[in-house]
């Protein structure tokens, strides 16, 4: 990494996990502040103003979701939560409370690094335009021209309905980041629809059919089962 040294606060109670996450962070050019408890982690965050917070949801002293809510009162540092496979509800709560993304244990170092890149991209350090490239965004064979409100695939114009287009642009704006059903529903349909995730599923299926080569095995619009969706390049 060519950036100046960035700071990360790592809040994780299991020593082994903490150790290898710290190793991966250091390999990505972070200075890591490790803490074992939520209380210590909040203190470290207040002291060091980190660029990234990595938070385990299963902390012994406090509920992870609570910690996120508290942090979000006074800091907008990207938060990446770590959790185990069976805690889907908790993950969604954490994301809706303001966490930026999650990782399910066990995760590989490449996954961790990809997530870190995605959450940091969303909060550029010097106010870069998002997405870069003059409002034109490409993934796979698809090209989205935000200025012309035009979507093409292999040069062919794709006809999207207004809702499909709004979903797509929302995903593009959050490239690489997970969006919960609730977040997408609120942005696209409005707050009144958040308890009808099946609407989103049907529209997402429509969008996939137009964009993906193999809608049942998507390459770009990925489903995070029980959580939401993620667009990858």
């Amino acid at each position: 990494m060519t950036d100046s040294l960035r700071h990360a606060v790592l809040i994780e109670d299991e020593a082994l996990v903490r150790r290898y996450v710290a190793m991966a962070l250091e390999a990505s050019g972070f200075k890591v502040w490790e803490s074992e408890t939520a209380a210590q982690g909040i203190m470290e965050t207040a002291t060091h103003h980190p660029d990234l917070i990595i938070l385990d949801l299963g902390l012994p002293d406090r509920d992870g979701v609570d910690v996120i809510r508290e942090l979000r009162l006074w800091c907008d540092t990207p938060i990446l939560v770590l959790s185990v496979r069976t805690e889907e509800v908790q993950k969604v709560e954490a994301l809706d409370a303001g966490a930026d993304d999650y990782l399910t244990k066990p995760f590989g170092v490449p996954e961790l690094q990809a997530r870190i890149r995605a959450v940091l991209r969303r909060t550029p350090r010097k106010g870069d335009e998002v997405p870069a490239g003059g409002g034109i965004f490409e993934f796979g064979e698809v090209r989205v021209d935000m200025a012309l409100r035009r979507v093409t695939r292999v040069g062919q114009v794709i006809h999207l309905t207004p809702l499909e287009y709004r979903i797509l642009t929302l995903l593009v704006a959050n490239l690489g980041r997970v969006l919960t059903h609730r977040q997408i529903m609120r942005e696209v349909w409005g707050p009144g629809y958040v308890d009808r995730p099946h609407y989103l599923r049907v529209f997402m299926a429509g969008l996939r059919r137009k964009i993906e080569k193999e809608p049942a095995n998507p390459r770009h619009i990925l489903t995070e089962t029980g959580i939401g969706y993620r667009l990858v390049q």
Partner: protein
Amino acid sequence: MPASTLLAWISVIALVAVRIKEEFWALALVGLVTLALIPVRGHLILANTLMIYLLLVFLVAVKLGRRASVFALFLSIFAFVYYFVPPYSLVAVIDPQYLLVLGFMLPIVLITAHLTSGLRTQVIIAESRERRIRSLYELASELTGIVAPAQLAGPCYRFIAANFDADGTILIPDDRGNLVPVAPPGPPAAGLTSSPLAINQSVAEKAFRQGDIPWQESVPHRCETSMYIPLHGSTGVHGVLVLTLHKPDWELSSEQESLLKTCVTFIGLVLERLGFAARAQQAVLEIESERLRNALLASLSHDMRTPVAAMAGIADAMLLSSPPLHSVHRSLLESMHKQIRLILSDIDKLLDMARLHTDHVTLHKEWQLLEEVIGSAIKTIATVLEGYAVHITIDDQIPLLEMDAMMMERVFCNLLENATRHTPVGSRIDIDARVEHRLVVVRVTDNGPGLPPGQEEAMFEKFIHGKTKTGTGGVGLGLSIVRAVVEAHGGTIHAGNRPEGGAQFEFSLPIGDPPLVVSDGEKFL
């Protein structure tokens, strides 16, 4: 008194005594009273003497019955006229005056005798009824506490011997369905079943198979001197009661018949209760052992998961170390990492299984798209599917399905993973989903060697796995999780082989009542 008269008296007494007891007693009483009254006949007026005889006849009517009392009346009138009415000869007997006395007294005697004999019959009936009810009550109280069919034998056989002049044997089906007699525990009591009963097995079977006909409507099966009565409970026949009569031509009185019916119903219900109790106990045992197993699974896998997950991470982190690792070390680390992932996936299956079998499986059901679940499953196990060609065909007609997406994802993951375990790399795996008769039918097929014949159902059992490629065996839980999840969604699953070769897993899910989704119209951009 002339000797001839005395002789006549004695001979009549002797004659009657050997024949009928009551008349003998009536004769004796009249004789005694007459002998007692003769010395004082000068001091008594006739009316009083007659009254004494009347009292006597009345007492005879009460105590000895109608015939004896009529007999006593005639004797009394004769004795009264002969010994007490002057001139103490038979002449007075034919006096119409005394015939009139006879005419008045006869109805009184008859009515009295009738009333008392009716009363006596009632008493006898009441006593016998009480005896029966008491024995039935004793049987009931003895049977309520029993816990094994063998305990049934003693009280029942005693009851039958006491009430029906017969030997009873209860036949109940054993584990293999053969009818076997219930023997009382301990050495057989003397006199109760002295001789081994000859039981006609085929008649017993017939009575047992008679099934749903209530005993009240069915004719008891009779064979030689035995009756074969099915023992009904509310849920079917639980055994057969064999009644071996001591007298071949013996018939049941209506009272005995109703007693027998009560007794049979009672034994039937007790057998049913014992059956239920045994089954409940069995179920409790099974639930307990299942719970123990699942608790063990859960704690084991949870305790194993954390360190193994950390190991995977460390192996990963080591790959990043600088200076870069030697290529040999690198590939060793990579294969170690791969093995750790396999262990983790098995631990996850143990956890899944344990979770599926806890008391309250909570499915987070939402209206889901099958396509999305399949796509997500393929992404989840992308590393496992490397080198396999997965083809997906999904019917456009498939509506939203109400399911737990996480669980259903496991179904696809496990089925796909199972396919890779039994087929060589480069094989083709097909997922085909379509609507068939209000069901969504999903088929996961491969072009591998197929399932061993006869093993199709066994594959879904816990800890069972077929022959796998070397080194890819799992814990054998994948398919049982699949079945548990499919069944929790109201579906069914079958395994088999495709005619053209290769294994096929087919499951179906019911189509519910999917909600309507309003499209935002044709306003294309």
